[in-house]
């Protein structure tokens, strides 16, 4: 019978820019912090999954943490690397193959936009050579079409960014801790219209790690274990509107976020209305808006009103990206999904400091989306609630 799984330790290496510190060192720091939180040592870990996009093999962390013979599997799943690592550790513990596991992600990207190579993604060279293979273009094209179909205006794009930086200013671990006013965001330089400079997150550096074990023994390791109610990864479907697509099918299909989200709610036996605090992939303002509806938290087109009336603020009905999200934290691709999980754990433990969601939240939700069309969703619950 499948076992219930709990998170018993979380550890973060702050996101940002850290000259002279390798991505791997940041990953090792995160694992050590997570183990400390779980009151465990590395030699007790029986399985590890981890990844980075630009900072080397995650397995190399063993050289820092200890050569204990632990099965350590490298994960390379773009922005969903952390979510995929987490889902894999959970599967290992559920199956009984391991009692204690670690999921870790870290990264260190060069400055500026990503420059993927077409052949690595099954595409032809001309697609990159002629200037069509940019993730920022995709987010802009998807946002532009979404705004057209659902009556969203630029006001909503500005408000997402404004809230992200407002929350970031409350988070001592955020990269960007300065609030930005409406005008500063609305008039920032265009990157890929309708998206502007402060509506995009930046590639960054950082590390994030989570320690898990079977729920029945969780309290031995941490006084406030967080139960994993669902952890789901889904890839794109024929016809869904994804990044790195030289063409889109005539008939549009739902995004992998929609199928991942539905499967996660089903697995957890709860609905969007039960969630008290949520992390939604905000690579850019437009993505967060789209993801609010794709994850079932509102109807398409309803977002602008929710952003305006304060529903998505820390004290609102749908507190989104309470730590500032990708916009205020930047995106070290390998670590980003686990940062989301860590923020939700801190919120559910009641340890989120100045950004704590009031009312002792019980259920939390995380969602990542990345190239070439992969989404990971978790639903987490405060134990003993």
């Amino acid at each position, binding site marked *: 019978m499948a076992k219930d799984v709990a998170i018993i330790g979380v550890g973060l290496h702050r996101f940002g820019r850290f000259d002279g510190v390798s991505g791997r060192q940041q990953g090792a720091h995160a694992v050590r912090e997570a183990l400390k939180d779980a009151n465990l040592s590395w030699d007790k870990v029986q399985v590890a999954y981890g990844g980075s996009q630009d900072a080397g093999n995650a397995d190399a962390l063993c050289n820092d943490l200890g050569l204990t013979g632990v099965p350590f599997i490298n994960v390379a799943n773009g922005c969903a690397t952390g979510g995929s690592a987490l889902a894999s550790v959970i599967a290992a513990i559920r199956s009984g193959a391991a009692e204690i596991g670690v999921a870790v992600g870290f990264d260190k990207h060069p400055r*500026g*936009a990503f*420059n993927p*190579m*077409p052949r690595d993604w099954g595409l*032809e*060279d*001309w697609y*990159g*050579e*002629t*200037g*069509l*293979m*940019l993730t920022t*273009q995709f987010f*802009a*094209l*998807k946002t*532009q*079409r979404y705004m*057209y179909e659902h009556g969203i205006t630029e006001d909503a794009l500005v408000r997402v960014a404004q809230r992200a930086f407002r929350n970031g200013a409350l988070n001592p671990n955020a990269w960007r801790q300065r609030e930005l006013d409406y005008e500063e965001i609305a008039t920032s*330089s*265009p*990157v*890929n*219209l*309708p*998206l502007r400079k402060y509506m995009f997150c930046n590639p960054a550096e950082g590390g994030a790690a989570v320690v898990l074990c079977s729920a029945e023994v969780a309290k031995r390791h941490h006084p406030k274990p967080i139960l994993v109610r669902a952890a789901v990864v889904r890839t794109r479907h*024929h*016809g869904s509107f994804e990044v790195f*697509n*030289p*063409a*889109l*099918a*005539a*008939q549009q299909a739902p995004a992998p976020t929609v199928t991942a989200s539905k499967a996660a709610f089903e697995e957890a036996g709860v609905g969007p209305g039960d969630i008290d605090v949520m992390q939604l992939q905000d690579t850019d303002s437009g993505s967060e808006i789209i993801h609010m509806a794709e994850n079932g938290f509102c109807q398409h087109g309803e977002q602008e009103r929710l952003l305006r009336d304060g529903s998505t603020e820390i004290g609102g009905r749908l507190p989104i990206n309470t730590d500032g999200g990708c916009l205020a934290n930047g995106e070290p691709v390998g670590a980003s999904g686990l940062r989301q999980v860590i923020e939700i754990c801190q919120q559910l433990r009641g340890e989120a400091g100045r950004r704590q969601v009031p009312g002792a939240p019980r259920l939390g939700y995380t969602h990542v989306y990345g190239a070439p069309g992969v989404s990971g969703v978790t639903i987490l619950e405060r134990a003993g609630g």
Partner: protein
Amino acid sequence: MNENMTAHQPKLACPHLIGFNNGRPSLIGSRCANCGEVYFPAAAGCTRCLCTEMTPADLGDEGILWSWTIQDFLPKEPYNSGETEIDFQPYGVGYVQMPSGIKVESRLSVADPEKLRIGMAMRLDVQPYGKTPAGESIHTFVFSPITSAKGGENHG
């Protein structure tokens, strides 16, 4: 394509994507022999019905603008326009819905947000987007708004 024809054609980044009929370019993709789904560029198999029998398909040279953006910063490699930060010219990018319903991603000849609107009629063209290190112009497929009156061209 015979030698006589290639001699008159510009250097293309993607010659296999573009066919010429009486001097007019059109986009070449493929169609699933089983379910009829259309692909661009030509695909080895159908991701909808999983059939692997595909036939070439001419997608045409006109469509409707389905979404758009402006590329406002110089892309890193593998972009090969040869431009630098100093002489970079922003360019439009869009998805153009072709008669079969497929939406093709393309550069746009217009980079002015005031002149682009979802739903506008677009026509295919072949235009230079950069130069090789040796100074030879490199061309690719580009869509331009169809202007009603001649002389109202949007080329900047």
